[in-house]
């Protein structure tokens, strides 16, 4: 009987995620139609909860030994999901709920798969989720009260460099990278924070349209930070960091030539690094041909591909996979485990959920009529997007593998917390700028409405409003409620 439910659920899971995506699409295209928008969001939430209940049912049946623990956890997650939906609705009324739903769906899928891999990790991860959502809850209050975020660029970069140097000095090595710091019982990765600080630095530094000279200082600093990452053998972070830098510079200057020059320089740098460091050569050769040395060099990537391909499009069924044979499956390779148990169609759905999240982030950046906010939002979204791409492409042998975590799915405290912080900032910017739509018209230009319409946008200056005004308005609104 349990087997029948597991097999039947394979198709149900695919249905949930497809319905979730479809209603995400409907909601995204009907933002002006409040009724349709709300309805689609509700359907998304229902799909998410159905997914959770269905998965929990299977977990309870598959392992009848420790039923109370499973039920406790499942109910805990259920409460967490409902509470999160409620909290975000209440405290971020004008944020992108499509984005929030995406985040919670990914979190739930991650928790379910973590339970099948290692029930203990799932418990810890749930606590980090709760910490993350509390942080996300507090952030808008803090951000609304902080004056002029765009004026602290020196502070951001100094703090970032202090963190990096201290990692180099006091860091300890885990998973092949020397980028962990232990303070008391806590182990965390400063590189996650450094990325956020650097984006903040860039966004504030480039909030006045820069010329080539003014780009020189950020570029040199970027180089230094990247070298620090390379020295810590944290290639994934170096890559993500570099791409985010290039994206912010490109958006700030709109000059494709800068982007190409930077990319070519980086390619040259990557080639030099490839020639110097043997561990990079090993990775590249494992990527080019994992099959010639499955037992050693190609082990990770080959086992990831075995997991993805063996059970094909519909997967093995929850709890029926062999994902524990993949190394570091709970962190870097969690996507392979998802593909194995839920099937590749579901895996493609997960990729699309990520895409949905990032496109919503892009909408936030597009709506922001303040250079700093636009750059900040685009930079942070780009950070998350490229990180997801690096690891998704890595485990599917599209690009060489560099070990980074998959946002919201992988096990890992700091990285999960930082993902929540990033999303909270993106959402804060998103809702600040949506609210801007009903601000009283300023200056001579009386056309602040519907910034997305291309006709109007052409005439509207980029800098419609200062950050102070946005913040003041946010505060006023909140107090008035």
């Amino acid at each position, binding site marked *: *009987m349990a*087997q*029948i439910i597991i*097999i*039947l659920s394979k198709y149900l899971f695919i249905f949930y995620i497809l319905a979730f995506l479809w209603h995400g699409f409907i909601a995204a295209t009907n933002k002006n139609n409040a009724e349709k928008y709300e309805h689609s969001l509700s359907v998304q939430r229902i799909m998410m909860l159905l997914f959770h209940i269905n998965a929990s049912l299977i977990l309870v049946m598959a392992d009848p030994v420790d039923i109370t623990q499973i039920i406790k956890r499942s109910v805990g997650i259920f409460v967490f999901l409902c509470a999160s939906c409620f909290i975000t609705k209440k405290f971020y009324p004008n944020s992108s709920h499509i984005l929030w739903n995406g985040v919670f769906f990914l979190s739930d899928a991650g928790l379910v798969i973590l339970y099948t891999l290692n029930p203990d990790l799932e418990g810890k991860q749930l606590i980090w989720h709760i910490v993350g959502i509390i942080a996300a809850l507090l952030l808008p209050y803090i951000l609304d009260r902080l004056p002029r975020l765009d004026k602290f660029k020196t502070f951001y970069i100094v703090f970032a460099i202090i963190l990096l140097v201290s990692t180099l000095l006091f860091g300890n090595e885990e998973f092949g990278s020397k980028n962990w710091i232990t303070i008391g019982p806590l182990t965390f990765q400063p590189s996650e924070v450094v990325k956020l600080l650097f984006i903040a630095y860039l966004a504030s530094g480039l909030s006045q349209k820069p010329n080539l000279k003014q780009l020189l200082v950020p570029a040199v600093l970027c180089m230094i930070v990247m070298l620090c990452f390379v020295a810590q053998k944290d290639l994934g972070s170096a890559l993500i960091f570099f791409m985010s830098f290039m*994206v912010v510079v*490109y*958006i*700030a200057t*709109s000059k494709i030539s800068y982007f190409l020059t930077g990319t070519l320089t980086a390619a040259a740098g990557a080639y030099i690094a490839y020639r110097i460091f043997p561990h990079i050569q090993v990775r590249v050769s494992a990527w080019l041909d994992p*099959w010639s040395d*499955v*037992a050693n060099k190609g082990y990770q990537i*080959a*086992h990831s*591909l*075995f997991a*993805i*391909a*063996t*059970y*094909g*499009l519909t997967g093995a069924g929850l709890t029926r996979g*062999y994902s524990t*044979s993949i190394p570091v499956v709970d962190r870097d390779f969690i996507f392979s485990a998802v*593909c194995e148990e839920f099937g*590749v169609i579901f*895996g*493609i759905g997960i*990729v*699309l959920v*990520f*895409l949905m999240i*990032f*496109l919503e982030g*892009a909408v936030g*950046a*597009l709506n922001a009529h303040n*250079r700093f906010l*636009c750059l900040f939002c*685009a930079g942070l*979204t*780009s950070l998350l*997007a*490229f990180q997801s*791409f690096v690891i*998704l*492409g890595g485990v*599917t*042998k*599209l690009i060489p593998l560099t070990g980074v975590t998959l946002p919201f799915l992988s096990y890992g405290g700091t990285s999960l917390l930082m993902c929540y912080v990033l999303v909270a900032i993106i959402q804060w910017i998103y809702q600040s700028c949506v609210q801007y739509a009903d601000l009283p018209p300023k200056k001579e230009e009386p056309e602040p409405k519907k910034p997305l319409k291309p006709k109007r*946008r052409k005439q509207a200056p*980029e800098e419609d409003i200062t950050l102070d005004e946005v913040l003041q308005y946010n505060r006023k609104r909140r107090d008035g409620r």
Partner: protein
Amino acid sequence: MKKSVKTVFWIYALLFFLIIANLIKISVFDRDKIVNNPYNPRISNSSQTIMRGTIYDAKERPIAETVRYDNENDPLGRGYSYWRKYNYPYSFAHITGYTGKGKTGAEKEYNYILESVSNELYQSLASVIAKKDIKGNDIVLTIDADLQHYTAEQLGESKGAVVALEPDTGKILTMVSYPNYDPNTVAQNWSELNTDTENSPLLSRAAQGLYPPGSTFKIITAAAALENDPNLLNYEYYCYGEEDFQGKTLHCYNSYSHGSENMNNAFAQSCNTYFAQIGMMLGADKLKAKADQFFIDPDFPLEYSKPLFSLNSGSPVHELVDTSIGQGKTLVSPLFMAMVTGAVANGGTMMKPYLLDHSISSFGLKSNVTIPEKLTQVMSADDAAKVTSLMKQVVDYGTGEDAAFSLESEQEYEVNDYVESDGAISGGGFYTETYYESYPVTVAGKTGTAENSGGDDHAWFVAFAPADDPHIAVAVLLENAGKGSKAVPIARNVMKYYLSECYEE
């Protein structure tokens, strides 16, 4: 600025669609290759909850099947367990392999198909409602059990192997090795089977055994000669029974002098000095170039040994001389020699040998149908025809005369039983009578007597028939049996049996 934001995120969207395209590529197009990698821990998995699929012969007779037996101590509490039953225990031993102690053979190679459950939802429902077994997919092999059984009988209790394949497809028709074992009782007899180094019954001699090819290698030497200089076919040489090649003295069998001969006679009589002379004239480079075309990885689905050939321009003369007549460091398996013979029969195209015809899902649908695949072109069709005519003469008047056989075809004719005797007429009706008309089948072949340091010579015979429209290519190897002609009758009988009993147009 806004435009740049859009550009950037369109690029991200593109990157994510690349991931999706790659996922589809992995899980749909590259799937077979990835799944069947021997390192994949999922393919060797064996489940007690499902009934393993059946292995059928070419005519869908079960060779290995899983059956229920009552078991009160069943760990799953069903009151029964599954048992793997092998219906042709000895003759198919090296084909099916066993499941009792790890897995080998087809059981190992096609484990994933045998353990995969098709129409899983339907089967699970049927098992709950109708208490039916959840059954893995069945596979159908290319081997006809009748032929396999007959071949095993022919080989009898001589150590050796027989491999036959269809030249134009690479389909394995029969593959028998002796000594063999009973897969039903492998687990019980494990220590005995595993420690018997003298007979090594677990070894599939047909695919894993490596032997010097002896004179059967002259097929390759002749092909090299004909490609480089077609006139060598008429090259005249006087054989004294032995010859000195720059210090290396070479004998013909029993130092028999073949006298004056061209390639036709020399091939038919398997003259060593003649082909050593040809090898000397070609040189190591040209011989190696031709041999390299033949000596490729057979890419056979079951466990096999790759053929070995080592010769290069720096090799000493005695090695070149030895290699030209199939001695030296060359080592081949009977399967590989069958492929070489099949390539000659197939106009110079070597096909990839295969064992799995197709698999059958629970609803009786065919899948995994093997499509014959070309492995390599070893010589031109012209040269193949010339080598074929050389090989025909081996059977016409040479060392393989015993391989000639006739087939009988059923003929009918009408009889009128009208009889007139003593003025009385009886009968007067027409009826048909059948009679058998025998007609000769032309066979092309080559014998080989492989010297080996470990004991008596190995006897080889490779052949295909009918020579002008080949349906079967066969290689026979008898360990320590002496002269190559000992292997000839087995090959003849197998070919005859196949053409008369199994082959259908």
